[in-house]
C-alpha cells in the first residue's frame, strides 16, 4: 500500500504578544529534531510550520551511522532500525561491468550500520509523535511566518494562519525553514555557492526485485547511455532510482510517467513488474550562509546550508546541527553558560558544513564532468579501477556522510598526554559492545545522558561526578564490562584513562589519569565559561 501522509489539524491562532523562550520556524526533519532534543532537555518549544503534514515525495533516504546514534539518544534508534533498510555495501559499475564494491563498515562490533535507508516522511511522522509524547512541544501546523524583526532580546515574528494572524516574541528563534528559508531571506542574508548545470530524474518504484540492499551506482550503463544511475532500496519494497539527465533535458517532457516507465523498464528488463510511486526532477546547489548565528536567530538544516545529494549529507548534516546546537541553547537558557557559548555553534558547524560542501561538490564534479578532459580523466579512473586497486580510491560516486570531527573547536581541551589513536578531542564518541550486569549491551547507550559525562576506564570510585560511566576489563559491579576489549582499544584507554564527553557525545578532553582540576577546567572551556 502506498504511503498516505498524515494530515495534522491546523492549530488555532496564538494570542498576539505571547512570549516564548524558544520558537522554531519549520517543522521539517531538522526543526522537529531540534524540538524533540530541546523538549527532552526539559525546554518548552513552539514549532511553527506553514504546512500540515510531513515531507512529501522522495527526499532524504539515507541516514548515516552518526545520525542513527543521535536518534537513538532521542529514543528513535530502534524504530529506524526496525523499519529501515540496513546497508553497508556499495557497488560501482562502468558501462556493462562492475568496477568494484566497497564495505562502508568493515569493522564488526558496532550497534548501528553505516547506513539505514528510510523515506523521510516516516522519520518526520515519528518525530512528530515523539515531540507530542514529551508534552513540551507546541506544534502549530498551518502557521506561516510572514514577518520578522530581531534585536538583542530576541525576535518578534508575524504569523499567518487560516483562522487569523498574530505576532509572538521569541527569546531565541531557530530558523529551520528549509532551502528557501523565509527567515534567511527576510534578514537579507546572502546564501552563496554554486549551482550544478545538470538535472536528475528521481523515480520511486515499488517492485519485487532480486537486488540486495546495497547502493548501486552506474556510470554510463547500457540502459542509460552517457548518464549515471543510482539505485537504493527503501522501506516497503520501494526503490529509488536517480537518472542523470544532463542540463539540456526538458523537465516537463522528462516528468511524463510513460517516459519514466520506459527508462525504468530499460533498466530492469521486460520481466520485472513495477509501479511508479513518485517522479520528480532536481537540480542541485552547494551553498551556505556565511554565519549560522545572527544574535538570537540561529539557522540550521537546509536554511543554513545546502549540498548536492551525492553523499547523503544534507539531512545528516542538519541532524548534527541540531545535536550541536540544542545542548548549548539549553545551558544558556538555564543560565549555566554564557550566550557566547552559541558562537561555538558557528565555529563548529561552519567548518563541518564546508567539509560537506567540499565533498559533495567533488562528487558532483566527478559524476558530471565539465569538459572533454574531465570526462577523459573520469573514464580513465573507472577503467583503471576495474583492474588496479589504486584507482578505486579515486572513484567518486558520492563520499558518504561521515560524522564531523570538530578539530580546532574553541570548546576542546587539547591533549597533553601521549595517545596513539583513540578518539581525539572534537570527535564523536565511538560505540563498542560491552556487558552490563552480564547482558550484552552497547557503550554509546550509556553515554546518551544529554549531559556532560565522564567515561572512566577503571572500577567505580565513590564520590565520582554524576554522570560517570565506568568501564573495566574484568566484570565489576557498577561498571560496564569491556568483555571484548574493544572499548579500551577504540579509545586507546589504559587503566585510569578519563574522557570527558559533551552532551552531544563529542569528546571535550581526555587524560591518562583522572584529575578533577583538569576536568573542571575542561568543563569550563567546553561551556565557554
Amino acid at each position, binding site marked *: 500500500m502506498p504511503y498516505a501522509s498524515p494530515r495534522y489539524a491546523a492549530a488555532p491562532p496564538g494570542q498576539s504578544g505571547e512570549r516564548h523562550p524558544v520558537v522554531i520556524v519549520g517543522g521539517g526533519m531538522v526543526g522537529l529534531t531540534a524540538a524533540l532534543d530541546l523538549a527532552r532537555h526539559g525546554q518548552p518549544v513552539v514549532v511553527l510550520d506553514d504546512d500540515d503534514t510531513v515531507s512529501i515525495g522522495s527526499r532524504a533516504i539515507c541516514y548515516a551511522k552518526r545520525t542513527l546514534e543521535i536518534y537513538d539518544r532521542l529514543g528513535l534508534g530502534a524504530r529506524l532500525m526496525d523499519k529501515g533498510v540496513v546497508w553497508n555495501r556499495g557497488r560501482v559499475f562502468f558501462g556493462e561491468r562492475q568496477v568494484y564494491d566497497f564495505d562502508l563498515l568493515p569493522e564488526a562490533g558496532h550497534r548501528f550500520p553505516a547506513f539505514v535507508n528510510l523515506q523521510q516522511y516516516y522519520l518526520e511522522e515519528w518525530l512528530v509523535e515523539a515531540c507530542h509524547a514529551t508534552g513540551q512541544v507546541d506544534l502549530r501546523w498551518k502557521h506561516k511566518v510572514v514577518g520578522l524583526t530581531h534585536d538583542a532580546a530576541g525576535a518578534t515574528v508575524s504569523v499567518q494562519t487560516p483562522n487569523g494572524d498574530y505576532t509572538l516574541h521569541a527569546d531565541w528563534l531557530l530558523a529551520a525553514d528549509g532551502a528557501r528559508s523565509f527567515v534567511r531571506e527576510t534578514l537579507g542574508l546572502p546564501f552563496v555557492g554554486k549551482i550544478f548545470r545538470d538535472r536528475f530524474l528521481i523515480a520511486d518504484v515499488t517492485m519485487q526485485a532480486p537486488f540486495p540492499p546495497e547502493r548501486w551506482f552506474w556510470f554510463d550503463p547500457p540502459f542509460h547511455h552517457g548518464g549515471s544511475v543510482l539505485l537504493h532500496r527503501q522501506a516497503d519494497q520501494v526503490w529509488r532510482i536517480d537518472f542523470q539527465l544532463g542540463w539540456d533535458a526538458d523537465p516537463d517532457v522528462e516528468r511524463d510517467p510513460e517516459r519514466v516507465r520506459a527508462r525504468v523498464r530499460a533498466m530492469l528488463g521486460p520481466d520485472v513488474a513495477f509501479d511508479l510511486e513518485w517522479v520528480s526532477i532536481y537540480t542541485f546547489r552547494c551553498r551556505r550562509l556565511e554565519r549560522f548565528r545572527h544574535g538570537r536567530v540561529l539557522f540550521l538544516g537546509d536554511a543554513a546550508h545546502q549540498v548536492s545529494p551525492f553523499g547523503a549529507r544534507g539531512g545528516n548534516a542538519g541532524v548534527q546541527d541540531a545535536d550541536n546546537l540544542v545542548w548549548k541553547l539549553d545551558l544558556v537558557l538555564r543560565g549555566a553558560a554564557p550566550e557566547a557559548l552559541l558562537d561555538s555553534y558557528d565555529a563548529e558547524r561552519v567548518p563541518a558544513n564546508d567539509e560537506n560542501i567540499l565533498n559533495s561538490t567533488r562528487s558532483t564534479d566527478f559524476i558530471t564532468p565539465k569538459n*572533454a*578532459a574531465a570526462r*577523459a580523466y573520469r*573514464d580513465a579512473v573507472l577503467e583503471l579501477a576495474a583492474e588496479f586497486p*589504486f584507482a578505486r580510491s579515486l572513484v567518486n560516486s558520492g563520499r558518504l556522510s561521515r560524522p564531523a570531527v570538530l578539530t580546532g573547536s574553541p570548546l576542546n581541551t587539547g591533549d597533553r598526554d601521549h595517545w596513539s589513536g583513540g578518539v581525539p578531542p572534537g570527535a564523536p564518541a565511538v560505540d563498542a559492545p560491552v556487558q552490563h550486569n552480564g547482558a550484552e549491551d552497547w557503550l554509546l547507550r550509556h553515554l546518551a545522558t544529554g549531559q556532560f559525562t565522564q567515561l572512566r576506564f577503571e572500577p567505580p570510585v565513590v564520590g565520582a561526578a554524576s554522570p560517570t560511566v565506568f568501564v573495566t576489563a574484568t566484570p565489576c559491579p557498577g561498571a560496564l564490562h569491556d568483555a571484548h576489549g574493544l572499548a579500551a582499544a577504540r579509545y586507546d584507554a589504559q587503566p585510569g584513562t578519563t574522557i570527558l564527553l559533551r552532551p552531544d557525545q563529542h569528546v571535550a578532553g581526555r587524560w591518562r589519569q583522572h584529575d578533577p582540576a583538569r576536568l573542571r577546567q575542561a568543563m569550563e572551556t567546553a561551556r565557554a565559561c
Partner: protein
Amino acid sequence: MLILDPNLSDPDAVFAALMEAHRDLSPEQSRRLDARLVLLLANHIGDAAVIQAAIAIAGQPVSIGKSALDAHSDNEAS
C-alpha cells in the same frame, strides 16, 4: 619536492616511448592514454604536494619567443 633537475635514466628512450604510444591514435584516444598515464604516475609519486607543484608548473601560460628566452636567461644569470 618536485624534481626539476634531470632525473630520467634514459631520456631519449622515454620520450620515444611516449611518441610511440601515441602513434596512430586519434586525439580522443590520445587524451585517454594521457589521462591513464597521469593517473598511474600520480599514484606512483603519491605525495599530493609534489603532484600539485607539477600541476602548477604544467599549467603556467605558454610563452614562446624572445621574452620567454629572456626570462630564462635572467634566471640562469641570477
